[in-house]
């Protein structure tokens, strides 16, 4: 009953392009079932990658956060996608459901995050099927980190947190496209992360009820959307417990603003002044 150890994470995911066919874009992957990405053939590979990176212009306009407390993990994010100054969408789903007990957050390039999280979900499922047990959060984050490390320097822009609940309890890892993989209790990622940290660090306690923790996360994301122009839209809050993740709330940031700071009716605002209609 020997279990076959799954070594798929150790295989490289890109192939050496062969130049013998003339168009130079043929795959020669060692294991045909592993999806390989084609690399462009050009004289100055690094220069080309740098130029592409500038052209795509990924900006981490977002705020996401996650923290561990005694009842599991809370994950929260805003929902704005910006391209420079232009808001391309206010309804982006930045919390990606990898499987029923694991969540990933999206910060950086949207396409990169969506693809690689989906890819990670596939790998986790394959691991479950070949090893007859669920993958641990440490293992899943390591899979992703190794993949991202192999694409290091090629212009991927991903700053993600893998949060979930496994046999060892709640797990939270920060993984990014530079190849970093950090374990921790509290993380916030994105352009608004500094503002969110201020509120999160101040209100954090390990022993909290689920509602208190959700309110802290909501308040922190709201604060970040207030100060950071590239964050906004709606705040989504998820909770990951022993039975898996559950979405707790999705509130529009504008409505939250008036909820936290209701409009005070000042006497001046109530006056209706008529402009002089005839010229002197």
């Amino acid at each position: 009953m020997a279990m076959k150890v799954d070594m798929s994470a150790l295989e490289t995911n890109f192939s050496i392009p062969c130049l013998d066919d003339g168009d130079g874009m043929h795959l020669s992957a060692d294991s045909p079932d592993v999806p390989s990405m084609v690399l462009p053939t050009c004289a100055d590979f690094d220069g080309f990658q740098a130029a592409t990176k500038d052209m795509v212009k990924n900006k981490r306009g977002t705020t996401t956060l996650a923290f561990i407390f005694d009842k599991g993990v809370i994950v929260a994010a805003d929902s704005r996608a910006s391209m420079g100054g232009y808001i391309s969408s206010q309804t982006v789903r930045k919390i990606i459901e990898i499987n029923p007990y694991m969540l990933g957050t999206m910060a950086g390039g949207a396409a990169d995050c969506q693809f690689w999280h989906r890819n990670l979900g596939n790998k986790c499922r394959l691991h479950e099927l070949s090893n007859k047990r669920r993958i641990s959060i440490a293992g899943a984050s390591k899979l992703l980190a190794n993949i991202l490390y192999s694409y290091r320097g090629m212009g991927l822009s991903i700053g993600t947190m893998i949060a979930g609940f496994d046999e060892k309890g709640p797990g939270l890892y920060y993984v990014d496209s530079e190849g970093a993989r950090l374990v921790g209790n509290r993380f916030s990622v994105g352009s608004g992360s500094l503002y969110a940290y201020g509120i999160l660090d101040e209100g954090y306690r390990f022993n909290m009820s689920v509602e208190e923790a959700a309110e802290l996360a909501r308040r922190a994301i709201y604060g970040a959307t207030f100060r950071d122009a590239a964050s906004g839209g709606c705040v989504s809050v998820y909770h990951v417990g022993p039975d898996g993740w559950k979405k707790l709330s999705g509130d529009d940031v504008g409505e939250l603003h008036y909820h936290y700071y209701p409009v005070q009716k000042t006497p001046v605002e109530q006056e209706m002044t008529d402009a002089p209609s005839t010229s002197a």
Partner: protein
Amino acid sequence: MVGKNCFAIASDRRLGVQLQTIATDFQRVFKIHDKLYIGLSGLGTDAQTLYQRLVFRHKLYQLREERDMKPETFASLVSAILYEKRFGPYFCQPVIAGLGEDNKPFICTMDCIGAKELAKDFVVSGTASESLYGACESMYKPNMEPEELFETVSQALMSSVDRDCLSGWGGYVLIV
């Protein structure tokens, strides 16, 4: 935006430094006299300084001529003041709106070195200006009454500003 014997001038309220929001109650539309208003988008400090300079010049004009400046004259004044600083400009794009003789509305906009652009319907400036052009173009009708003009200007401002990260946090609409 121009209506029937009236005009509307509007702005957002955000003051920011690149992505960080500093204030949500920044005043950008200033009064020169009862029937002449100027809105200054761009660098906050230049907007305030330019406004103070223009009020000073207008007060001098009032003392000498014993009347208020006409909007066309004021636009030429702003243009001249901006061009004086041709090689070290004020980083502001003004929008001027006023009622001239017989309450005929006058609007114009300028770039930061004083190129006047007169229009008969609407003028826009700021980080969301492309968005604003689209919104105003589709919502504008000639000869609108003040209430309808207010609705139109508010909707155009809100919809454009909702698509721009660097604008927002409230709006200020003035109808004269």
